[in-house]
C-alpha cells in the first residue's frame, strides 16, 4: 500500500457525554496524582525518583479510555498517566511509589516498574524503547489464543530512535498483531529537543516504512486524541493490524521532578503554557453542558481518594529484608 494510504486523518467526531465524562475523570485523576506527588516532594515528605506527567494527562487518559480493563498496557518510567488512568487502585499505586509492602509490587518495583496485571498494566520499563518488543509478545499471545485483547504500548519521542522500536514495528506489521503503538511526542528526550535527535519531521511518518498504519494527532485535543485511540484499538481488535499513533504534547515539568528548564527556549515555554490540555478540556466539557459544580465535584472526589491513599501509604510498613529472597526465582532463595 502506498504511504499516504496508510495514514489516517485526525478526527473531530463528537464523543458521547458518558465517554467524555470518563475521559475527564481519568484526566483529572492523572493530574491530581501528579500535583500531589510534586507537593509531597516539595515538602520533603517523600524523596524518590518521579517523572512528572504534567501536560501529558489527556494523552494517557483518552488512550486508556479506549481500552477495556482486560486489555494490556506496557508503559515507561513516565507512566503515571497510563497506570492511574487504566485503574490501578490509588492506595496500591501510592504505596508502591513510597516503597511500601502494601504496594503493587511490595515495594520491589517502585516508580519506574509499576506492575498491576489485574488492570492490564503488565510492564513498566525504565529502559527507553524496551517496552515495544515486549508489547508485541503480549499481542502475539492474544493472537495465538484468540482472547480478543488489544495491547497498547506507550513510549516517548526519544524511544523512536532505539533499535528495539524498529524491530518491533516491523514485527508487529509483519504478523498483523493486535497492538497500538502510542508515541507521546513531548518534544524532548531528557534535555535534547526533538529536532536535535531526529531528522525526520515526524515519528508517525515512519510507520509507512514498515507497512503499518499511522495517525498524527494533537494530544491536547480530546476529540483528536480519543478518536485516534478508538480507531486504532478497534482496528487491532478486529484483527486488522497495528497502528502507530503519534500524539503531540508538552512535558511541562521537565524530565523529572526538580529538573532544570534552562535548556528550553522561552518560545517553547510560552507555547507549552498556551497549549495546556486542562483548560482546553474544561472548555469542551462546559461546552457540552457539564456544569462547573459537576466538574469541581469530580475533582474533589479524586482529591479525597488520593489523600486517603497517601495517608495509608505513608503509614504502611516497608518490606522485610526477607523479600530479597522471594520472587528472584519461583522457589525462595536459600
Amino acid at each position: 500500500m502506498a504511504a499516504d494510504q496508510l495514514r489516517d486523518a485526525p478526527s473531530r467526531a463528537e464523543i458521547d457525554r458518558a465517554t467524555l465524562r470518563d475521559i475527564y475523570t481519568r484526566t483529572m485523576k492523572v493530574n491530581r496524582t501528579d500535583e500531589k506527588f510534586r507537593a509531597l516532594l516539595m515538602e520533603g515528605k517523600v524523596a524518590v525518583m518521579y517523572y512528572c506527567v504534567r501536560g501529558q494527562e489527556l494523552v494517557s487518559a483518552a488512550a486508556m479510555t479506549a481500552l477495556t480493563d482486560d486489555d494490556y498496557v506496557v508503559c515507561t518510567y513516565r507512566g503515571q498517566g497510563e497506570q492511574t488512568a487504566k485503574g490501578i487502585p490509588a492506595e496500591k499505586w501510592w504505596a508502591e511509589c513510597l516503597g511500601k509492602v502494601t504496594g503493587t509490587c511490595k515495594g520491589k518495583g517502585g516508580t519506574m516498574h509499576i506492575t498491576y496485571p489485574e488492570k492490564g498494566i503488565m510492564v513498566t520499563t525504565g529502559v527507553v524503547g524496551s517496552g515495544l518488543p515486549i508489547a508485541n509478545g503480549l499481542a502475539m499471545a492474544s493472537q495465538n489464543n484468540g482472547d480478543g485483547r488489544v495491547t497498547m504500548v506507550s513510549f516517548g519521542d526519544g524511544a523512536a530512535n532505539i533499535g528495539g522500536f524498529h524491530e518491533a514495528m516491523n514485527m508487529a506489521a509483519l504478523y498483523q498483531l493486535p497492538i497500538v503503538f502510542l508515541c507521546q511526542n513531548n518534544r524532548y528526550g531528557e534535555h535534547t529537543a526533538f529536532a536535535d535527535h531526529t531528522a525526520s519531521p515526524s515519528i508517525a511518518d515512519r510507520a509507512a516504512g514498515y507497512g503499518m498504519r499511522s495517525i498524527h494527532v494533537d494530544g491536547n485535543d480530546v476529540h483528536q486524541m480519543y478518536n485516534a485511540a478508538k480507531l486504532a484499538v478497534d482496528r487491532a481488535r478486529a484483527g486488522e493490524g497495528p497502528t502507530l499513533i503519534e500524539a503531540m504534547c508538552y512535558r511541562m515539568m521537565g524530565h523529572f521532578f526538580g529538573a532544570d528548564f534552562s535548556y528550553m527556549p522561552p518560545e517553547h515555554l510560552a507555547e507549552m503554557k498556551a497549549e495546556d490540555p486542562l483548560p482546553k478540556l474544561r472548555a469542551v466539557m462546559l461546552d457540552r453542558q457539564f456544569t462547573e459544580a459537576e466538574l469541581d465535584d469530580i475533582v474533589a472526589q479524586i482529591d479525597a481518594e488520593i489523600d486517603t491513599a497517601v495517608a495509608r501509604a505513608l503509614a504502611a510498613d516497608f518490606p522485610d529484608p526477607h523479600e530479597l529472597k522471594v520472587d528472584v526465582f519461583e522457589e525462595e532463595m536459600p
Partner: protein
Amino acid sequence: MTGKPPQITMVQALNQAIDEAMAEDDGVFCLGEDVAAKQGGGVFKVTSGLTEKYGTHRIRATPISETAIVGAAVGAALAGQRPIAEIMLMNFVGVCMDQIVNHAAKLRFMSGGQTNVPLVIRTTTGVGVGFGGQHSDMLEAWFAHVAGIRVVTPSNAADAKGLMRSAIDSNDPVIFIENILCYGLKSDDPGPGYRVPLGEAAIAREGSDVSLITYGRTVLDALAIADEMASVGISVEVVDLRTIAPYDEETVLASVRKTGRAITLHEAVRPYGTGAEMAATIHEKLWGKLKAPVLRIGGTFSPVPFVAALEQAWIPTKPEIVAAIRSSMENG
C-alpha cells in the same frame, strides 16, 4: 523386540521434547529465524517437522531481530504462554541482552511476584567448527551472573530431551545452550515425557581420587580422560552440572568431600568463569578437607581463532587436563 533400545541424536531429542510439550500445551510455541518448515525447520533442524503439525503461529519464523524475538517471548510469557525463542548462535545474545537481563530475569522480582516469565531461549555455540571469533563463544557466565535466570546445557541426547522438557515446564526464564559439536551424539531413547530436573547435576562417572567438574561438550573430554587415567591407577569422578546456574552445589560439594580434590573444566574462557565461582565455594566450604588447591581449566583468554591449528590450541587440551589431574594428585 530384541536387542538394544532405539537410539536418538541430540537434535532428535530436542525436537521430540519440543514436540511433546507443544502437543500437551497449546501455550507452547517456537519463534526464531528460519525455524518454520518454509525455511527448513531451523538451521540445525531442531524444529523440523513441527510446522506441519502446529502451524505457522506456533512455529513462527521471524525477521532477523533478536531484540524483537526475545522481547516477544518475554511478552507472551507474561501473558501465560510458554515461548521457546531461538537465538541462532550464542554470540548474538549481545544484541538482545537488555531483554534478557533487564526484563526476562527481573520482571518476577520487580513486579513483586505478580508476573513471571516462563520462557526458554534456545541457542547454540561451540569451539571446534571453524566459525571464528563471533560464532563460537560459550557465554554462560554472563547469565549465571544475573539473578533470575537459569542456565542449562546438556552433554548427551537423553539429557537434552529431559532438560528441554524441564526448561519448558519451568516458570522462570531458562537459557538453554546447545553445542554444535554435540548435535549428532546418540543416546538410548529415554521415551516420552522424560524429564531431567533443573538444578540437579549428574555423576557422569564415579571415582575416588579427584572430582572433575564440568558441563556441555567438555564432559566428553572428561569422560575420555577419566578412562585413560583409570588405566594408570587414578580414579577420576566426572560431575556433569547440566544446570550451570543456579548449580547443584550439594552434589559438587559431596563429590569433593569424597575425593578431596577438585578441578573445574569449561570451554568458556577461564578468567571470571563459572569455574572460579565453584572453586571459591569449594575452598570456602571444604577448607581443611581439601588435599589440593582447586584447579581451574578453561578456554584461552583470547577471541576464538579461525584456523583449526589455533582453535585446537585454544580449547582446553587433553594434555592440559591430564597435567592438572596429575598436579592435583601430587598433593596429599
